[in-house]
């Protein structure tokens, strides 16, 4: 043997277990401590309805964030999620109220539309070779405008008056409203959806070869191509998944308000990107990942709810949000012995 392996002891990477643990679990700890603090200090935080409520509020941003996460695994970023969610809101409302279809059809139409937008993004990025940020920015503008053209700039509500003076034939069906208001046992449906989708995305990304190949494409597309990966296909699939998940988030929003609110979804982009980014730092992994994103969504929701209960005005909440985020990031990056940025990885 030309070179003998180094003795195992000389690679005692476990030598700094405390630091390692902080890097890996610091973010989780911050979340847990914060939740613990609210649990103790705010009696109303403890109620089970509130705790499930955290998941309910985290659901749209968490699900859209999971879409962004998938796009990030292939090294991209999807700026169109907010407008796709808004499009899903208006489109599903339009289908039910103007088109007089049942909720199932509305859901189907919105999901197909989300997938289509994902395909358009994929075509722009993969085929037309436009950098992802620019491509999704373009779709963002176009879809946002299209949505408003579709509904003529108006919110769509059950039995609204149409331009010709007649009343719209349809309404938000109960089946559709179940999306936001349904419960299985004590568990609200959006919470279940969030959990199910997180598990699915986690399983896809961590346990299947497709997930592995998505990460490969993001880490080094050329090396992946030469290893036989169909890079274009995987990148396209990622954007389609992002589009569909953004649509799901939009459907939840539509069902929550019970109307095709024109402004719904507008603020989702920044939040979804934020939780996906924050998620990369969770568990010290420094790559986009499902648990991280969901934890990020829960952390941010917890802060909003908890600080509101404490009676802080929303702008003080922003400062607090910044501070908590900072502490968590310091744990994840500053203490880390790994290099902060790896080439080819979305940072």
């Amino acid at each position, binding site marked *: *043997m*030309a*070179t*003998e*392996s*180094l003795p*195992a002891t*000389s*690679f*005692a*990477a476990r*030598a*700094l277990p405390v630091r390692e643990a902080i890097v890996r679990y610091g973010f989780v700890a911050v979340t847990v401590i914060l939740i613990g603090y609210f649990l103790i200090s705010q009696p109303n935080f403890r109620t089970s309805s509130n705790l499930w409520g955290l998941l309910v509020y985290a659901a749209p941003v968490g699900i859209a964030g999971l879409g962004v996460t998938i796009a990030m695994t292939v090294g991209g970023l999807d700026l169109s999620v907010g407008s796709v969610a808004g499009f899903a809101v208006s489109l599903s409302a339009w289908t039910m109220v103007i088109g007089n279809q049942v909720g199932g059809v509305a859901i189907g139409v919105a999901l197909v539309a989300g997938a289509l937008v994902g395909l358009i993004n994929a075509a722009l990025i993969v085929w037309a070779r436009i950098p992802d940020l620019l491509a999704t920015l373009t779709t963002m503008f176009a879809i946002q405008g299209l949505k408003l053209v579709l509904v003529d700039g108006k919110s769509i509500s059950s039995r609204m008056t149409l331009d010709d003076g007649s009343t719209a034939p349809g309404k938000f069906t109960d089946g559709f409203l179940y999306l936001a208001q349904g419960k299985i046992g004590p568990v609200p449906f959006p919470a279940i959806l969030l959990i199910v989708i997180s598990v699915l995305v986690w399983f896809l990304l961590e*346990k*299947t*070869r*497709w997930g*592995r*190949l998505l990460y*490969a494409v993001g*880490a*080094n597309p*050329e*090396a*992946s*191509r*030469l*290893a*036989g*990966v*169909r890079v274009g296909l995987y990148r396209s699939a990622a954007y389609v998944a992002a589009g569909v998940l953004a649509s799901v988030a939009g459907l939840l929003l539509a069902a929550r308000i019970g109307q095709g609110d024109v402004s719904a979804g507008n603020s989702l982009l920044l939040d979804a990107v934020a939780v996906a980014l924050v998620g990369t730092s969770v568990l010290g992994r*420094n*790559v986009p990942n499902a648990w991280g994103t969901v934890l990020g969504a829960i952390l941010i929701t917890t802060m909003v709810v908890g600080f509101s209960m404490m009676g802080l005005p929303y702008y003080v909440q922003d400062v607090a949000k910044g501070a908590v985020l900072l502490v968590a990031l310091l744990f994840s990056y500053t203490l880390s*012995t790994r290099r902060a940025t*790896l*080439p*080819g*990885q979305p940072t």
Partner: protein
Amino acid sequence: MTPPLTAEPRTEAVVSVRGVGKSFGPNVVLKGVDLEISSGEVVALLGANGAGKSTLIKILAGAHPDHTGEVLIGGEPARLSSPTAARALGIATVHQRVREGIVPGLTVAENLAFDELAGGGASWLLRRREVMSVARRAVEVLDLGWSDAVLRRDVATLGISDAQLLVVARTLLQRPRLLILDEPTSALSSAEADRLFGVVRQLRADGLAVVLVSHRLGEVDAIADRAVVLRDGRVTADVAKPLSWPVILPAMLGASAEGLKATVLEHDTPETPAPERKAPDGDRPAVVRLRRVKLLDESPPLDLQIYNGEVTGIVGLIGAGKSELAHGLFGSAGWTAGTAEFDGLARPPRTPGEAIRNGIYLVPEDRADQALLPGWSIQRTLSLPFITKVSSRVGVLNGGSERDRASTVIEKLGIVARGPRTELNELSGGNQQKVVVGRWLVEQARLLLLDEPFRGVDLGARRDIGDQVRAVAGAGGAVVVLSADVDEVFEIADRILVLVEGALTLDSPITEVSRDDVVRAFSGA
């Protein structure tokens, strides 16, 4: 442990390294290195992959200020706290990873003049004329012959060999007291390496001290005045010219070097053709048949057969079209014209994925850009092309079988690593190369294409990889090794082809040609 063998005392040391140590976390890489380098000598720093050569060099270059021990320069203790500090003290370095040396987005000229740009002394205005004149001087130093049009191009358009030459040229411009070259020739053809060494000899005559790291012992033999061997974090030999290989090799490789001496040295010291190679046996069926293929825009059509059960070595200078040939066969790039027929396949592979499913594998030439995935472990990198083999039919990954594959390769090729989960960026360059070659050796190939497979791997590993590659041929596969290094091809191939600007100038069983024939073929004769 072999006690250090000291050579006779030399004249004034330019740089003295005293008890230098360095660890990465718990991994102790250097355990007290002592070394003297005098002006006007070329010191070869030798050692197996992962011995710590690059680490020592980075210390001298100021890139690892947190080392222990001390470094004296001109007899004075020096603080090598940053690359700038090292440079100010007259130490100029060409690092092993070429991509660490060039800045994409800047022009070739700006890259050649980058040290001037980076240094605080220069004017704050960007004087393009000055940049160009510095660049022209750099071009001259290495006699690169690049025109101004080339100098104005984005450096990202250069191939890896030209990038390597660029970095060397830039460093030579600094006129340092000590010049350090970390595997400068691994991406160069022998002609270019010769040109580089011509310059090094001249600098030596001017009183410069040079430290050279190389795994090409022929090169070392030709130019080094002294060889220092690192092993296990310590200096295990320090011998002066004429270099005594029987002393050096065991110092480098330990006891395992015993069997090596014969084979390695024979191939590394020219003229001896490899023993017991197959003679061509008449009209065998070819696994691949190329018809009127044009590799480059301007090259003549090429006809070529590749046979089962043998290793075909293809040599050529940079830009001869070797990589185009490999990519064309692998389905990852098209040729300008012509067709290929594969035995047993309805059509040539049109994508790498199709190629891999049909047992056609490629080890690409540029490790960093074409094979490494930042942040990925050995195990993941190894299983990437064969991901279906480590996952169930429904796509669920099987961690155990991934780990087993990785452990096998680690053991077979002697990869120095903590385990299958070690990240590749923690490995030394040679060990990274072993991983990216090794991943294609687990499955039996129908056609294995290796583009510069020995880049930066040490002797022992070269032998290990060579054995594995020959085993692929032994099991009936066809192997093609593309290399700019004639010695490497002689060491491994059954048949040798010479490619000059997309045209074949020699095609012969290895047993029937000499090195001189090959070199003659380069000139197109």
